[in-house]
């Protein structure tokens, strides 16, 4: 598209939002269609694929045995990594994670960690020495906006789908036994992201809305309706009133989205 057409379209998007409407017909607090498919990669201990409109995110879970952190010797380790895979967008470059993929991984991580979604104490094999390490690899396959919500949803969907191998300890060595147990999951945190455009809040911005938004705000909500993570992004600002309004909407939206998950 020529840049003039782009600018006309952007203006149109912004003007519609000022009137409470969106170019794709959604209301300001409507999500795009959400599809969650759990268990798509047999080779992974857990996996899920999420479609949020045309945004597509796959998440795979791998579990290994490793050392606990010195300050939590009785707990397993959670590691979240996000890859903005270059096939997902012309703006993604191959190479080590940039600030955008690091922020994405850390926001997803915070939601899982702070809601205590995984019972990490049940992942301890030998206190101070051996624990399970849960690798959550978020893989963005197509970028059409709102990567945070799609990634957080794919991550918890994959965790709910995760099976761990059984083991016993023989002479200090971990022996794998036949059979699996599910990963001990206690909560299902859901991220809800807002874009501020023309001083209005819209939920689940798609790519063209993100390109003109002033700022971004993500609220992650646990099963009890508590807030467990917040992240503001972008070069604009929010008023205190907007922040509190967003928290209320996020609570409602999270409850809706959580129903998409099989447990």
């Amino acid at each position, binding site marked *: 598209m020529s840049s003039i057409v782009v600018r006309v379209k952007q203006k149109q998007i912004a003007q519609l939002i000022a009137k409470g409407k969106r170019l794709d017909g959604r209301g300001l607090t409507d999500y795009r269609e959400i599809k969650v498919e759990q268990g798509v*990669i*047999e*080779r*992974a201990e857990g*996996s899920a694929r999420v479609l949020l409109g*045309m945004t*597509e995110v*796959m998440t*795979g*879970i*791998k579990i*290994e045995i490793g050392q606990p952190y010195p300050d939590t010797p009785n707990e397993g380790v959670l590691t979240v*990594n996000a*890859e903005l*895979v*270059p*096939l*997902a*967008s*012309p703006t993604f470059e*191959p190479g*080590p*994670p940039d600030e955008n993929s690091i922020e994405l991984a850390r926001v997803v991580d915070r939601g899982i960690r702070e809601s205590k979604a995984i019972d990490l104490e049940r992942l301890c094999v030998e206190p101070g020495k051996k624990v399970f390490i849960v*690798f959550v*690899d978020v*893989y963005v*396959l*197509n*970028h*059409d906006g709102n990567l945070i919500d799609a990634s957080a949803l794919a991550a918890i969907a994959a965790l709910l789908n995760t099976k761990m191998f059984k083991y016993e300890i023989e002479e200090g060595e971990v022996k794998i036994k036949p059979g699996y147990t599910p990963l001990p999951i206690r909560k299902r945190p859901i991220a809800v992201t807002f874009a501020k455009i023309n001083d209005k809040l819209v939920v689940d911005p798609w790519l063209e809305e993100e390109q003109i938004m002033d700022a971004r705000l993500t609220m992650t909500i646990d099963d009890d309706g508590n807030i467990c993570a917040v992240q503001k992004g972008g070069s604009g600002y929010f008023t205190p009133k907007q922040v509190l309004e967003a928290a209320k909407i996020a609570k409602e939206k999270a409850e809706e989205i959580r129903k998409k998950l099989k447990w």
Partner: protein
Amino acid sequence: MSQKLEKLIDKKGLRLDGRKPDELRPIKIEVGALSNADGSAYIQQGKNKILAAVYGPKELHPKHLALPDRMVLRCRYHMAPFSVQERKSPAPSRREIELSKVIRESLEPSIFIEYYPRTSIDLFIEVLQADGGTRCASITAASLALADAGIPMRDLVAACAAGKVDGTIVLDLMDTEDKVGTADVPVALMPNLNAITLLQMDGILTLEEFEKAVNLALEGCRKIYTMQKEALKAKYIAVKEVEE
């Protein structure tokens, strides 16, 4: 290839998954799987699940890398951390760097690279699940992604491996056969031109076995070529239906 004593071919001459020696695994191909890329394709071959996407032709940055008389094809073959048994670090391994090179060199002969001087095409391959023979399945998908992007091509490139397992030359090795077998010979072919654009081997083969394996792999390539053309047709028909 380590030679452990497992029975990979049973008394009836069938393989672990019930295939005959010269039989391909089930293959599913979808052209145009991704909306942002200029061209894309998805392939399932056995348990392999692979996406290929093409961006370009476009201006090349930094400019001093551009070539005055041809386009530059860049290729990244990459495996998702969860695609294999033990988690793979997302940083490119030496194996991934080598495969990116041989995949690129297997596709270059098929492109009219002189049509777009000073430009580049970026080809990205993501292995979401690996089950042996990922480089061949990647080439098969990548060639379709190039076609889907409208890049002018001499022919499609179809790829398939043959190898030696329990003393038998077999087609399209799956993961266990690849790891426990005696030899693996991945081949890529432009069928219309009878041109081999990828050829590698590891293992041990006599000259006669090598010849047999290459010929079997070429047969496999030709079968896959038919499926590639069907997948392309399927997309065009689908597009046409949408347009009407």
